[in-house]
């Protein structure tokens, strides 16, 4: 059963990626942009659900979102590095590495203290960033145009190019994450969430699980921040503010940790509500999100991912017949 399952995931994901890339050709540019932002936010959300599978909710992913964004921005403006693929990759690795360093500090905490400490760290970064005028202070700075293998695309293809790159890179990461979630260490993470005491008495370390999950979340958040910055063409300290962190938590709770695609769908929902709100309902988009969140917590505690999981389980059952 297992090998077939893993092969199924691989091919289904490739199919989905191809579908999204093709669809991107036919949809208007503003929608491509929205979807790219959704991917960026979804990446951070994936990081949070990785932590949620281990029983922790981070209220401060703005920290890594900001680090990733500023990394990409500074490499662009200071080092002349504009290749989007390279920037995304470097942000992923660098932020992940920083995450690995601070993870042992955070991994000792649980529940509300973990949430508050992650929040505090993100706000510390915010406090630093808004006062450094050399990188724009609270206004931030503009990122240079992105290139792809040395080529700078024509203005009308810029959004689509970034979109394709982000679909491919995120797709690969998502497949790897799904494999991790279904693996033995991924299962142990779920066990830590349910009964940390027993996990210790079975010989595994909850601390190590948390460090790993936080590192992954950091890398994902950093890549998301870089992608968001490149897509916007702009980076500012708002990336690390608590309200931004709150949006990531919103996405994660709405999506739940059962399904990876659900996280991106939740992010897309957020982006669509945000985009349409400006024109049609500027005074009610937060209200809509708030209501969505409460309804989701009350009626769908496992998130919209529970629908996705049921759906994919059914498909896989039928394929394996």
């Amino acid at each position, binding site marked *: 059963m297992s090998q077939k399952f893993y092969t199924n995931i691989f091919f289904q994901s490739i199919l989905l990626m191809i579908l999204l890339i093709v669809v991107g050709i036919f949809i208007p540019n503003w929608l491509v942009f929205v979807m790219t932002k959704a991917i960026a936010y979804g990446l951070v959300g994936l990081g949070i659900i990785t932590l949620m599978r281990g029983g922790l909710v981070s209220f401060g992913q703005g920290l890594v979102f900001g680090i990733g964004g500023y990394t990409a921005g500074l490499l662009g403006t200071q080092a002349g590095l504009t290749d989007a693929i390279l920037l995304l990759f470097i942000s992923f690795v660098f932020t992940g590495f920083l995450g690995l360093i601070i993870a042992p500090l955070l991994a000792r905490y649980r529940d509300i203290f973990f949430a508050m400490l992650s929040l505090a760290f993100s706000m510390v970064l915010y406090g630093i960033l808004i006062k450094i005028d050399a990188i724009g202070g609270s206004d931030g700075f503009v990122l240079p145009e992105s290139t792809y293998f040395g080529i700078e695309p024509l203005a009308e293809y810029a959004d689509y190019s970034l979109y394709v790159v982000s679909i491919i890179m995120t797709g690969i990461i998502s497949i790897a994450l799904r494999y991790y979630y279904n693996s033995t260490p991924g299962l142990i993470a779920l066990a830590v969430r349910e009964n940390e005491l027993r996990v210790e008495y*079975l*010989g595994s370390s909850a601390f190590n699980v948390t460090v790993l999950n936080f590192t992954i979340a950091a890398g994902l958040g950093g890549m998301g921040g870089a992608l968001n910055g490149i897509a916007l063409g702009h980076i500012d300290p708002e990336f690390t503010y608590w309200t931004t962190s709150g949006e990531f938590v919103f996405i994660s709770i709405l999506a739940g940790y059962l399904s990876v695609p659900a996280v991106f769908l939740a992010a897309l929902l957020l982006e669509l509500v945000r985009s349409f709100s400006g024109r049609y309902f500027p005074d009610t988009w937060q209200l809509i999100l708030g209501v969505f969140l409460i309804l989701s917590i009350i009626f769908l505690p496992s998130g919209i991912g529970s629908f996705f999981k049921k759906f994919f389980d059914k498909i896989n059952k039928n394929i394996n017949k």
Partner: protein
Amino acid sequence: MPNKKYVLRADGINKSFGAVVAANDININISKGEKVSLIGSNGAGKTTFMNMVTGYLKPDTGSIYLNDNDITQLSPRVITQKGISRSFQIPQIFEPMSAWENMLIALGTSQKKYSYFQNARSKENSDYIDEMLSKFSLNEFAHRQVSELPGGVRKLLDIAMALVRKPDILLLDEPTSGVGTEEKYPLMDTVAKALSGENLTVIFVEHDMDIVQNYSDRIIAFYQGAVIADGNSEKVLNNRSVQEYVTGKTQVKAK
């Protein structure tokens, strides 16, 4: 002087909580394959002793050796890795998951090497889990959520999970507590049968003297933190101090 005969050695263990003496110069040597029960009224020190063996508490003085390795200051996790597994009075299992998944977790945590990209639900793992579940007569409950299972089944699962690691010593904390009287013997029989042929060292804390007599060949009695008797059931259960402070029975026939 290291003494290779014993699988577990407790040397001069003392532990106090303020004015309360929970362990008073405990010296216990247990050989491989022994089935030992710890008896004593609540607060007598048997649970404290057990917690020190598993690393949850550290003795004030004295040392504990597992196969001549000093485990006194090690954490519960490391002690588990070295070969002591325990079950819990209130089953510590993973509630929203099925019995099968609980066993999978126990199996996963016991593996020294695993891949981050291979499915935990491999054929190899499945076969082993099915085997363990049938040893403990848990097959019919395999795919039901454990929070909905009856108390006796949950206890058996808790014990089965502790055994996945193939430990040197299995500690059972009141295995029949919270289980109906008519279920106690079937439960212990299932455990005994699952353990047969393994020559495992088993230490269990129990209050039910009939269970104690029938399932252990050695009894250690505690009172006020000290060991007041240590030997086979006839010797211990006819000991006057034991009768006064633990069992309350005056005449006990040998098994």
